[in-house]
């Protein structure tokens, strides 16, 4: 089980959280003018890196807040976690 560093509560067991996939995927600003290719990219494409990844979790059985965290998909090691709308820490890579 992962031990996930909630930036509000500190490290807690994975079973207290739900996963929110890749972080920093913003809704397109010019949505009225997007092509089908651009919509496909926004709706379906998420990066799937082997290595460090910035991702979202929600601490659903704890503070119930969303946050972002760096995690390595090769060995599940965690890097820094951070609150939304704050400066993203550099990738630990």
């Amino acid at each position: 089980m992962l031990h996930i560093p909630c930036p509000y509560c500190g490290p807690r067991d994975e079973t207290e959280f739900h996963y929110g996939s890749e972080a920093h995927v913003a809704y397109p600003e010019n949505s009225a003018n997007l092509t089908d290719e651009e919509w496909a990219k926004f709706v379906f494409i998420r990066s799937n890196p082997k290595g460090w990844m910035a991702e979202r979790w929600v601490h659903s059985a704890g503070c119930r807040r969303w946050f972002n965290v760096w995690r390595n998909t090769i060995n599940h090691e965690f890097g820094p976690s951070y609150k939304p709308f704050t400066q993203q820490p550099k990738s630990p890579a």
Partner: protein
Amino acid sequence: MANMTRRRTVELPDHPDFLWVAEQKPKKSYDVIIIGAGGHGLATAYYLAKNHGITNVAVIEKGWLAGGNMGRNTTIIRSNYLWDESAGIYDHSLKLWENLEEEVGYEMFFSQRGVMTLAHSVSDVRSKQRNFYANHVNAVDSVWLTPEEVKEIAPIVNISEDIRYPVMGATFQPRGGIAKHDWVAWGYAKAAADLGVDIIQNCEVTGFDIVNGKVKGVKTTQGDIAANKVGMVAAGHTSVLANMAGFDVPLQSRPLQALVSPLLEQVLDTVIMSGAVHVYVSQAHKGELVMGAGTDSYNSYAQRGGFHVIEHQLAAACELFPIFERAHLLRTWGGIVDIAPDASPIIGLTPVENLYINSGWGTGGFKATPGSGWVMAATIANGEPDALAKPYALDRFISGHLIDEHGAAGVAH
């Protein structure tokens, strides 16, 4: 217990290193390179040679033969998905399974013991019945079972009404079943090698040679190898390879875990799945109970997941099959599965000319091994999608023609 499958007492084949050249080194160039010696890559190579006469082929594997999902799955085979496109490719595959051992001349313990999919709520019953009728429209064998009929086929199932997830009915595909996955890989490897295919292990593809949008070969840990055509059949690592070739795929790599009990007396002679409670179980020929759990929630390439996922599935299994409470957990393991947004595979051409893709089989591609190899070989040989593969093109995510099999594939298979 009536109707019990007798354990087959055929001679087990020796570990088949001798079936192909285990230490094969790559040649300078090939007509076709297949990346990945899982079931689908090996089957692709075999059908390229067998159906299309293309034998100057190498299958390149970063680890060892069938060390990926091919050797880690719970071996469930069926073709009773919802949509016409799925009936097309999965039932073609099942028909190939029905003759496969004879065709490649290798024992695979293919056993059509039936696959039962349980329904546990009114909406579950409705969606399973919809699936059952859709199967009839597509001439895929399918039977609807009442809880009593479930009990008749599998007496160890708890059909009492006062459990958390009561059994309210089930679909049953009599032609479904299981096979011994490592032997399937070895059978295809042997048959492909006999036809001249090189199988190269411990050779990782680290890049592509692409000139003017056309693939010319691959870079590997054993040097550069030229090829007229390249097929990526790399399951959980497809995104990594696609990125090397300069394009994106709508796939996420997630852990999927399975577990076995020690060898037990035969108590179950069919396959039972329950999407709602994340249980799927069969009893292998030697006697171990083989069970699959759900996917872990996060992206990973680590081939392992959390134990709470195993516990969750065992809790449900013990309620459905009270006799399992006395069994021990012998071993758990995980594979990395490539999940597409509509739980259907991605097969066909890519933005790079002469580079082909076969991926996205996610949690349920073992059953499709023969059919997947068949259509991939045809697609590579002809340079255009095989008819059964056409709906599975990468551009369906742009056109919106998704083949949504979440209901039929679910977490289970």
